[in-house]
């Protein structure tokens, strides 16, 4: 007994010692990582502040409108043509939304395509100075759509008629490629009484533009719209907003424009990209009888220079932004070369990239697309020149 005692005590002590120090070391390690946990919540607050800082760089808030200060650019990109168009074709985008959608839908519009507009105004039934949104004094609901539209356009005219050339209406689930809209509009002037969108044919003589796909009025068209209401030529005829707008436009002599590209492919789209590319709409579907121009399914549904898609959800907004402005194939020479709008010339700019290029191979290029054999293309033959002309292309 006497010899066992100290030995057992020793072993016991050894175990206790090991255990105690182990616990002690773990506690120390925990304390090292605990501040990290505090750091993540701190990081979140910093993130939010950073977001506010970035917003201040992106827009100047004037009342409830966001004036664009710095539309997005890519490193290594030559955006001189886009910048030129940005200056000359000023677009005010107003987005039809409501208080319930701000966090789930409108916010994503704000952080994606609205950054490419010259001015953006979010129109709601309720004033929100933080987002910011304009309160139009209506209620919410489908039956309020034309009221909201009437008031929104009046608001835009009263406040910003001189600050923009074109006035776009979009929903909070519409994705708009504003650069491509400028490409179309650069072929016209804001003094023309004209408006563009996805043209539908029923109920009207000249057709009307789909509300969900978005439509854009020239300054003159907007003026006539407002005058039309003053003179009671136009009134709140129906809550079917796009049809009512079309009927008013017809009454005040505003032309329904053709927004298709030079290969007669549509640019404004009433559904998401996936549906236009892959869905086979049944022949009984209203879409077939509504479209003013012949419908193409598959890849010809949509222009390379597409302007809008509708029913785009939050994830879809970022996906479209990624596909449009970020993801690309290195060195790829697109089949469709969109014609340069009159008055704009790539030749004007000095060679952006001094030094030799893949010139020999450029010259070997067979003139694209004149031999396209797509049977789904509508009857009209494509125009002779889908390109700027070789001189302009080489001038890069």
């Amino acid at each position, binding site marked *: 007994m006497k010899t066992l005692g*100290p030995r057992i005590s*020793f*072993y*016991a*002590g*050894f*175990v*206790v*010692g*090991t255990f105690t*120090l*182990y616990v002690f*070391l773990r506690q120390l390690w925990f304390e090292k990582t605990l501040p990290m946990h505090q750091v993540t919540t701190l990081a979140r607050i910093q*993130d939010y502040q950073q*977001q506010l800082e970035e917003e201040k760089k992106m827009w100047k808030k004037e009342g409830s409108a966001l004036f664009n200060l710095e539309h997005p650019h*890519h490193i*290594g*990109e*030559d*955006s001189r*043509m886009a910048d030129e*168009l940005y200056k000359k074709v000023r677009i005010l985008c107003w987005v039809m939304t409501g208080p319930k959608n701000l966090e789930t839908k409108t916010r994503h519009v704000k952080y*994606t395509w609205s950054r*490419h507009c010259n001015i953006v105004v979010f129109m709601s039934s309720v004033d929100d100075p933080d987002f910011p949104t304009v309160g139009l004094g209506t209620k919410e609901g489908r039956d309020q759509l034309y009221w909201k539209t009437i008031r929104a356009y009046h608001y835009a005219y009263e406040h910003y008629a001189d600050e923009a050339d074109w006035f776009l209406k979009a929903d909070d689930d519409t994705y708009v*490629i504003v*650069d491509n809209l*400028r490409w179309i509009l650069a072929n016209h002037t804001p003094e023309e009484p004209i408006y563009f969108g996805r043209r539908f044919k029923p109920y009207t003589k000249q057709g009307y533009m789909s509300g969900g796909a978005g439509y854009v009025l020239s300054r003159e068209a907007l003026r006539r719209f407002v005058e039309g209401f003053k003179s009671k030529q136009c009134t709140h005829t129906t809550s079917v907003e796009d049809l009512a707008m079309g009927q008013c436009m017809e009454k005040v002599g505003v032309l329904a424009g053709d927004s298709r590209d030079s290969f007669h492919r549509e640019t404004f789209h009433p559904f998401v*990209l*996936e549906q236009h*590319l*892959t869905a086979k709409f049944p022949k009984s579907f209203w879409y077939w009888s509504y479209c003013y121009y012949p419908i193409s399914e*598959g*890849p010809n549904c*949509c222009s390379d220079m597409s302007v809008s898609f509708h029913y785009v959800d*939050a*994830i879809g907004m*970022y*996906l479209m*932004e*990624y*596909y*449009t*402005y970020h*993801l*690309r*194939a*290195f*060195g*790829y*020479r*697109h089949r*469709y070369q*969109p014609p340069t709008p009159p008055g704009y010339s790539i030749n004007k700019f000095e060679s*952006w990239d001094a*030094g030799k*290029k*893949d010139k*020999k*191979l450029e010259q070997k290029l067979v003139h694209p697309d004149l031999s396209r054999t797509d049977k789904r293309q509508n009857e009209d033959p494509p125009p002779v020149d889908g390109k700027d002309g070789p001189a302009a292309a080489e001038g*890069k």
Partner: protein
Amino acid sequence: MLSDGCSFIKGVLLGGVFCLVLSFLGNFNFSSESSTEDHHHHHIYAPSKDELKRLSESQVEELKNQVRVYCIIMVQPKTLVYWATVLDTWSKHCDNAVFYTSESSKALEAVDLNEKDDWARLRKALIHAYENAGDLRWFFVAQPTTFAIIENLKHLILAKDPNEPFYLGNAVKSGELEYVEYSSGIVLSYEALKRLMTMFKDEGQCPERTHTLWKMGEDKQLALCLKYAGVFAENGEDRHGKGLFNKQNVVNMIKQSMQDNPSDVVEGCCPDMAVTYGGMSPNQMHVMMFGVYRLRPYGHDFHDWLTFYPPKDSDND
């Protein structure tokens, strides 16, 4: 009693010291492990514009010729829709796209390997590709759920010599083995494939069939055989450290980014010059095809130092 107490205290002290020594040893082990980790983990980047500008026209032309790709697409009749979609979309941009199937299908043409075992099938496909490479020097292995942007792959490997052993993609580690993940695509240079052919003859180190209960994925098998041949996995990324080969599909990556970087979703998510996305549904592939090769904002140009032309007889790019 006193001697018991003394023994106890001695025990406590020794126990404490023992614990400390163990933890230090543990740390030491970790640090030495990490150093060997760094030694093997390589990153592959595309050449910069400045690097390309320094080359002569004929050199650029030569590189463009050298970087032609033989695509090996592993299909099965049960995934016919995916097979058809790959055929109709991105594979048109391969210099030679060959489909290898486990069993023949009346609907679509492919090299029938008549092999149910995944690893054996991959081996056969690689052997067939090596024998039929012609003058192509780069090989890209894909599954039918993978979407690849071949121009971006070419850009990545543009300045790399195919007579050097390259094995790249989304490089991940499993224990001690670093391998290129299958669903994000596997890139092999001619030299790597050549060494693999030699390895295939070694039934000891690189057997065709393993009769173990537990099967190692064929991508890991491949990595093992290549490792024995002195070829190691490398990770393809851009200059911001973003992986160019993605095993997730683009929608999931954006969803994740909406949670992780809510104020900068797109920039924080996916690279501009992505090479692959895995797990893509057929519809997603059609959308990506349009998004990559058609849709763009007017007035933004890149003036890349190399030009790739659209393939003949194709209407969706």
